[in-house]
């Protein structure tokens, strides 16, 4: 795919006079040309398609639990049962520490972030292939398809957020101003998940291996992400810093800090997390743009 081409869209490019007859003096609204190498992100075009993004988000939300008996209740039920099982395993069976937080609340906090992250990555990684018909028949910025899942999965997160407040009431955890930092950590989680999703959805167009590789990767990632155990279990600060190279650790610890105020998160870890998140998003986006031009031919 080294000889890939792409389409330059410009409203301001100057015309090469030689290619045009005098009757065509006005500027073309669109110039289709092969280009080589890396392509710009073209955020302006992405913005002009925002209506389509919202409609795709709407579609994702409407479709996901259609023709199920209890519908949206699954959104609440899935993490609740998973959290209960994991809390029992962590607290009763493995007797893992939880920084003094009730185990269910501790695990639930981690699971909220993890679920949002893994659901986004998983749903959007298959999204391009699932929408092959669209990709090969209509033009629009392809990034919208994986991106739409970043937004639609927020609905699941919102439902869990309501449940979190219920848990906080049950465990007498008083809400503090720290809760205001939740959107910040959620944003970091979202851009990282989007980055991962862009990598995997783009790779999945050519290599269906991603269908098998990503679930495996996520499984390993889950156990490496301090969800049922605290980062404080790792005693050496140097190793903790290294541990933070996995940005999900930062999100989970940060989120717990917002909710219960106890966390092993250090400023260094936070900076590493932010750096890794931005790296994930940008590398994913540029890779996506690089290979996007061949999607219709190989999907």
């Amino acid at each position, binding site marked *: 795919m080294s*000889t890939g*081409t*792409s*389409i330059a869209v410009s409203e301001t490019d100057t*015309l090469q006079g030689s*290619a*045009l007859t005098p*009757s*065509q*003096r*006005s500027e*073309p*609204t*669109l*110039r*289709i*040309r*092969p280009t080589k190498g890396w392509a710009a992100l073209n955020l302006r075009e992405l913005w002009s398609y925002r*209506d*389509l993004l*919202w*409609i*795709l988000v*709407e*579609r994702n939300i*409407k*479709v996901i639990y*259609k*023709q199920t008996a209890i519908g949206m209740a699954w959104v609440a039920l899935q993490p609740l049962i998973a959290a209960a099982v994991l809390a029992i395993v962590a607290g009763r069976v493995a007797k893992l520490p939880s920084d003094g937080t009730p185990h269910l609340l501790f695990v639930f906090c981690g699971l909220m972030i993890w679920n949002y992250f893994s659901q986004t990555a998983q749903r959007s990684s298959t999204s391009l292939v699932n*929408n092959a*018909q*669209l*990709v*090969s*028949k*209509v*033009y*629009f910025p392809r990034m919208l398809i994986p991106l739409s899942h970043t937004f639609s999965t927020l609905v699941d997160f919102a439902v869990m957020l309501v449940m979190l407040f219920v848990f906080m009431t049950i465990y007498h955890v008083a809400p503090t101003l720290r809760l205001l930092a939740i959107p910040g950590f959620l944003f970091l989680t979202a851009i990282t998940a989007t980055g991962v999703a862009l990598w995997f959805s783009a790779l999945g167009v*050519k*290599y*269906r*291996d991603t269908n098998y590789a990503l679930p495996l990767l996520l499984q390993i990632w889950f156990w490496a992400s301090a969800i049922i155990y605290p980062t404080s279990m790792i005693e050496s600060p140097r190793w903790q810093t290294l541990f933070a190279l996995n940005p999900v650790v930062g999100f989970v610890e940060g989120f717990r800090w917002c909710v219960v105020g106890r966390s092993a998160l250090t400023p260094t870890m936070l900076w590493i997390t932010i750096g890794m998140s931005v790296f994930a998003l940008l590398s994913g986006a540029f890779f996506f743009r690089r290979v996007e*031009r061949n999607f*219709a*031919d*190989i999907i």
Partner: protein
Amino acid sequence: MSDVALSIQNLSKSFRIAHQRAGRPGYQTLHDELTTLPRRLINRLRGNGKSTSEIFWALKNISFDVKTGEVLGIIGSNGAGKSTLLKILNRITEPTTGGVDIYGRVGALLEVGTGFHPELTGRENIFLNGAILGMTRAEIKRKFDEIVAFAEVERFLDTPVKRYSSGMYVRLAFAVAAHLDPEILLIDEVLAVGDAEFQKKCLDKMEDVAANEGRTVIFVSHNMDAVRHLCSRCVLLRQGEIARSGNTSEVVAAYLGGEQEPQHDPVVHFPPKDGDAVIRFAGLYGPEGQPTTSFSSSEPVVLKCFFNVKRRIPGLRLSFDVFSFKGDLVFYSTISTAEPAISIEAPGEYKIAALIPPRLLLPGSYSTTLALHTPKTKLYDRRRQALTFGIVGTMADKFDGFSGDDLGQVYANVKWQRVEEADIESAVGHSVSILASS
């Protein structure tokens, strides 16, 4: 202001066809890519990277302009590059070399119902599909009622489209697309769907769009009637290159006349094959019994067919179709209409002749397909386009039509006569009495 809506300059598109090992799936896996990596690297270093794949040019050096308000048809046989060209214009795929300048907003209708989600209702799908085709939410809202009325699905707006009949589905999909407001509209084969009535509605709508709204339309189709009906100019593609362009009727005629390879032998012996009823031989004969493929319109065409029947087949029929060079079925005939009746049910070798009467077919070229079958149940043997023949007009000069290229399907032996004013009433009275008595 520019009078050119779209300018295509030296456009080429190539695909790399990998030479796959037998039994491999069509797409590559990461494993394949990794295991062949060393070999590919070596090949590339040696400069013979082409040994594992082949470059296929879907489009080669295409250049043409489309004027604002023009309806341009793009025709060609399968694989000629029509769809690739539309995909490039619509930015779905990108050119390998060359380019296109487009002056105006482009909308495309490459396949009806693209992006419909079966679980969503008709109403939801109108918004989804509209947005996918490039409309804003406000635009869709403004046109919503019009779309629903055109599609005739008012009662089912809140039903998931998976429960729609295929006709309703297509109507809704076309309705959304037809209400796009682009300055340049790209259309691919949308008319291949829906019932005849709806097809006509679509054609009317497209004609409306092109003629009254002054939009530029690029129309790709296999439906030559639609192309002739809609397009003022045509481009014929053949194997990725422009074979011909210009006036629609000329280009369409060139396509229909030149792209199909006619069978010129007046007699054909078919290779033997197994079966309960098998056609062995077919031939065309002139009035003196000589084999020929060229007939005068004033003489009959004799079609002979020899076939074997191995076991008794109740209701077995020999039939043939005659097609015009445009591919339209002109007529069908079957042995069961013979008077006196001819039975071919019993086992044996049969030699049958069919006589196509003179002054039935118009001057032109025709082909015929022969079949042995039982009515609506089983096809025993069929020889598609087995024979090709031409009718030469002996009264061609008397027979020039208004447009010069479409004289209908058959020569109608219409009685023409001059009437005096006083005769009209009696003539009308006469035909009424005939109708009344029958």
